[in-house]
């Protein structure tokens, strides 16, 4: 049996493991019946192509996004112009107390 290799779980992640019935045409990973999306892709590939959800909802989303973008509502919030090059330079990878920015941890703004 070929198991489905879609990652599942909320806090503890694992592989689905249910018997695969097809492969994702894009990334070739084996998929069980429950993880084949409407377009036949795996959930990750479908999401990357914006094919998740109801087609009508996707169209509404694109219309709204167009109106929203052209209205500049979000970009005008003011905060996106708030930080200048001087502010940003202190957060360049070489400026940190730790150099290995691609490692874990530095992404977080705060720690519990």
């Amino acid at each position, binding site marked *: 049996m070929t198991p489905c290799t879609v990652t599942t779980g909320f806090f503890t992640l694992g592989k689905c493991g249910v018997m695969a019935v097809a492969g994702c045409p894009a990334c070739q990973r084996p998929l069980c019946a429950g993880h084949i999306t409407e377009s036949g892709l795996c959930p990750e590939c479908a999401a990357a192509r914006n094919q998740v959800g*109801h087609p009508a909802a996707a169209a509404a989303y694109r219309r709204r996004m167009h109106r929203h973008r052209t209205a500049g509502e*979000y970009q005008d919030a003011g905060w996106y112009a708030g930080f200048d090059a001087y502010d940003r330079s202190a957060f360049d990878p070489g400026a940190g107390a730790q150099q290995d920015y691609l490692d874990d941890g530095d992404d*977080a*703004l*705060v720690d519990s």
Partner: protein
Amino acid sequence: MADGHRAAYLAFDRFPSSKGSAVHIRHMAAELFDRYGGGLLCVLGGGGLPAYQREGAVEIVRFDAVVPNLLDRAEAFSAWAAEQLAPHRDTLELCHVRDPWGALPALDTGATLVYEANGLPSVELPYAWPLVAPSTLGKLRELERHCLSRAAAVVVPSYVIQRAVLDRGAAPDRVHLVPNGADPPPAGLPRPDTAPDRYLIYVGALQPWQGVDVLLRAFARLADLTDLALVVCSSVSANRARPLRRLAERLGVADRVRWQHMLPHAEVAAWLAHAELSVAPLTATPRNLEQGCSPIKVWESMAAGTAVVASDLPVIREVLGEHGRLVPPDRPAELARAIRVLLEYPDVRRELGERARRHVETGFTWRHARGRLAVVYETVAGR
């Protein structure tokens, strides 16, 4: 359905991970999604985590673009989160966020905003980014004020953070205290295979404010206890521990310190349960004194029934109360003395551990924390 979520949880934080913040997100987001019949979780990815997951009615999307500059990355996350929220604008009722970069796109949707302030970037960022200018911190404070003053509710885990968010414009009647918690591990957890016979334990990240250097210096003063080891369960990778490993070598204790990196959360409980003592040597820095925290390491040690020796700071007193031993912060000699005394008196140690466990069981498990959060959701829904 992928469309039409009523709730969203946004965090500029990798999830899941071995950090305390991930444990926190797990429980808070679960309460939100239980209440709203699912929802959208927008978090950081990378490290092999899938960019997209659907778990029942919960959709998990992860931001995994590589953007070297942190501020650029935070803003890119913000814009990405806005795109993720856009298809749900008509149905979104509540957005729960942990930072300004989640709050900005959430505010833009018009949904009710619950801001969970576990920390403040304007206080914490200078530790990791020492070149940050005071004027930049001023802008960050202003950004925090912008988001906190617009939140329908601000959730804080400690009174110290409560004071900090009130200073930043949060309305007093909208700030709610929801302390962190821990779930007592099942009794009879087997001892980890590689555990030393007798050991002290530190669990957590390795930033300077955690005071692991103070603990190493204190441990060096216990050199006569040759059967005693120190286990550091680091939530970050071995790279981050290099300066501390070098310190351990200089102090001559390297061979008695065991480093465990990024253990899965479920395995940490067994290490905690079999330790002689758990140490939380937080330092007296603005991060701990002015911003505040609610250290999950202390909660989990208490829940495991392991006696805790911790720094005498307001944030620790709030959590530990009379159920552990407090020592002045940043004093290795005092810390070593307190550890030595407790090692000498196993009965006292056991009793402290038992009392701490009962204290957690009766009011501070994650079930209790979720109950308190549910009250906040009810309050904002009724407004």
